[in-house]
């Protein structure tokens, strides 16, 4: 019985923590939020230098050839420090899709460049102000030519490539696009966490390459986000822990009515509830990490369980951290709002809480839990 990370993985996590601390990732998040930029290119370059973008990429393509567990511990630290980099878009989604679904030519072309940072990827799915589904995708991919518009695409500005969920006569497919191609127009869309820019991408007769089978795009997308959900969940528990720690520290230092506010049960019980939610989420993440790393048949329910509990934990920890800080928590100056924003970003990228609850129940129906 060993539902825990190995010593090597824990060491990697410690190193990641030290690196992000030293690089002041949290202050960098604030800078990106406060300026016109939509990602921290310098921090990203340093992350590339550490080899993190190539963790899962096989050695034959220049990567480290490690497993998903190594990615989980890195994700937890990126989440803790709110790193303003396109890691989730490029690594959990784009890179994983290329590794799993790309043909040899595409892999040979892109994987080494994802390791070196020459290529950064993202995933474009949403088209309207509602959840995308197999039946409402409209961007067309007739004859390897894309037409239509995607919105709310994270990190599209810093990205060089995108996978696009699109539709042709044969069904839904995943199309690979070089974002510097003629006919691509990328526009910034104001969003609620500007430390990670979101963009619209218009495709006007843009040449694309098919990834995976032509009519199985939606199923490939579902499989992809079932896996990525585990990594997103790790970012979410990292952020939840940071928000909880911030609330605990404040509750010990802030005095009201002659004593620390953390000595009042109203605050204690709030923080205990945050700890409970986080502990449930964290334990579910461990199991999902195991399921991901062993490609278990349990993955759909395990990842949805981790995702639902991690989303709930981060939502609770980030909002109650603000509440614990009182008026200070509502200021721009305090960091509370940065966790609040990021918790919403992470809970919406790859789909909302209620839709993940639905996915969980569907997976229970399919596996017949009784």
């Amino acid at each position, binding site marked *: *019985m*060993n*539902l*825990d*990370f190995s010593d090597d993985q824990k060491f990697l996590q410690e190193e990641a923590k030290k690196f992000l601390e030293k690089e002041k990732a949290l202050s960098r998040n604030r800078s990106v939020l406060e300026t016109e930029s939509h990602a921290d290119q310098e921090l990203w370059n340093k992350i590339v230098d550490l080899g993190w973008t190539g963790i899962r990429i096989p050695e034959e393509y220049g990567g480290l050839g490690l497993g998903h*567990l190594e990615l989980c511990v890195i994700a937890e630290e990126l989440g803790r420090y709110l790193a303003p980099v396109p890691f989730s878009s490029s690594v959990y989604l784009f890179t994983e899709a290329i590794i799993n679904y790309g043909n040899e030519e595409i892999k040979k072309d892109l994987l080494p460049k994802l390791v070196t940072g020459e290529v950064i990827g993202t995933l474009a799915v949403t088209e309207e102000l509602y959840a995308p589904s197999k039946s409402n995708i409209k961007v067309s991919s007739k004859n390897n030519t894309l037409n239509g518009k995607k919105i709310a695409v994270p990190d599209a500005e810093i990205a060089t490539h995108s996978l696009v969920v699109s539709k042709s006569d044969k069904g839904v497919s995943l199309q690979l696009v070089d974002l510097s191609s003629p006919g691509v127009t990328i526009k910034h869309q104001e969003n609620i966490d500007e430390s990670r820019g979101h963009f619209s991408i218009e495709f006007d007769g843009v040449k694309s390459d098919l990834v995976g089978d032509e009519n199985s795009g939606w199923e490939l997308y579902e499989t992809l986000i079932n896996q990525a959900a585990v990594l997103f969940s790790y970012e979410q528990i990292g952020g939840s822990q940071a928000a909880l720690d911030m609330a*605990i520290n404040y*509750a*010990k230092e802030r005095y009201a009515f002659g*004593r*620390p506010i*953390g*000595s*009042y*049960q109203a*605050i*204690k*019980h709030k*923080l*205990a*509830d945050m*700890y*409970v939610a986080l*502990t*449930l*989420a*964290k*334990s*579910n993440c*461990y*199991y999902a*990490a*195991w399921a991901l*790393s*062993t490609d278990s048949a349990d993955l759909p329910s395990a990842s*949805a*369980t981790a995702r*639902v*509990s991690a989303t*709930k934990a981060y939502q609770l920890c980030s909002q109650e951290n603000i509440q614990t800080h009182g008026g200070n928590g509502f200021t721009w100056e305090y960091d509370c709002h940065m966790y609040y924003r990021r918790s919403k970003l992470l809970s919406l990228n790859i789909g909302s809480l*209620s839709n993940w*609850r*639905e996915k*969980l*129940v569907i997976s*229970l*129906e399919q596996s017949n*839990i*009784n």
Partner: protein
Amino acid sequence: MDFNDTPQEAKFRKKCRDWLEKNASYKDGSSKSEDFANKDKLNDAKAWQKKKYDAGWAMLHWPKEYGGIGASSMERIIWANEEAKFDVPKGIFEIGLGMCGPVMMEYASEEQKERYLPSMAEGKEIWCQLFSEPSAGSDVAGLRSKAVQNGDKWIINGQKVWTSGAHFSDYGILVVRHDPNLEKHKGMTFFFVDMKSPGIEVKPIKQITGGSSFNEVYFTDVEIPDSQRLGEIGDGWKVAITTLMNERLAVGDAGGADVEDAFRWAKNQDNLGEPLLNNKAARESIADWYCEKSGLKNTKLRTMSALSRGDTPGPEASITKIVSAGKLQNIGNFGIDSLDMAGMLKTDDADIKSFQNAWLGAPGMRIAGGTDEILRNIIAERVLGLPQDPRADKGVAFKDIPSGNS
């Protein structure tokens, strides 16, 4: 990451399972009553405990001389996991073995340990815990039952309450106040007592479930020899804490109707012409309960992983009762409400019974062994490191502490 036993653990598990297969049968899924007021049930439980004792499984982590085999924490867990798969009586000895045993082990004389521990492990003698009082629940150190020393004896007067199994117990551990002029936590002394002593009267408490697992225990001029004192005079609280720590380890999952039951029920139950499982609110609730249930299960696996490595587990397991008792209450509500107006009725249907039992029993689970509120205080203070509340009961004689009308 893996879920495999080490070779040594696998060997031990096989040994447990082989013995259990020879001596018991696997559970068949039907739920059985554990009503020990019924003499046959009590005798069955005692017979099973004796069988385990003779084979060395009764208290496997205890030293050999007191009836154990000196097993590790991991081996205890493996045994418990395996035993849980079999249809065997349980529950009745938990307080004695889980809470009274460790205190006797730490504070009783060698002679007393040899006399009492093996017969406790064997199930021949049953023990109970006499701590709570009418005015001392969450604040158990507020207890007022009196002990007055008289030569080599103590005379006890007062009342205990919420004593599980007092009506069939042979011995009990008891904490009482020997001096109300001392500060609250300094004026208590700890004993063990023969429950057949003259002056002890046990009255069952009828619970909201209609059952009676608890008792009031009245003490009128009960004599206890000084040799049955555990710890020094005035050390009663220190000794009690040893027990309470063990209680917190022992009180775990609330049991009863769970998410699998709610799910199966929702698939089959009609709701406005369609299965209840088609209802969005039902689906969201089931998803959340499944996350709680899995979270507790996986937390347990993390604790076991630490034990398996020989490490001390983290504080994660402190969330178990808060989460499971609340979930039990919500699932009880869900099941009953799914019957709409007919939910009022008692029926013979096993599922409906289990939802009604969950609903009626859960309020007790949210209180017993540390209320939701006390457990949140413990998490906040001991795990998160938040400061204690200022207290009105420190630095004054017990008799001068404000106590309202109670």
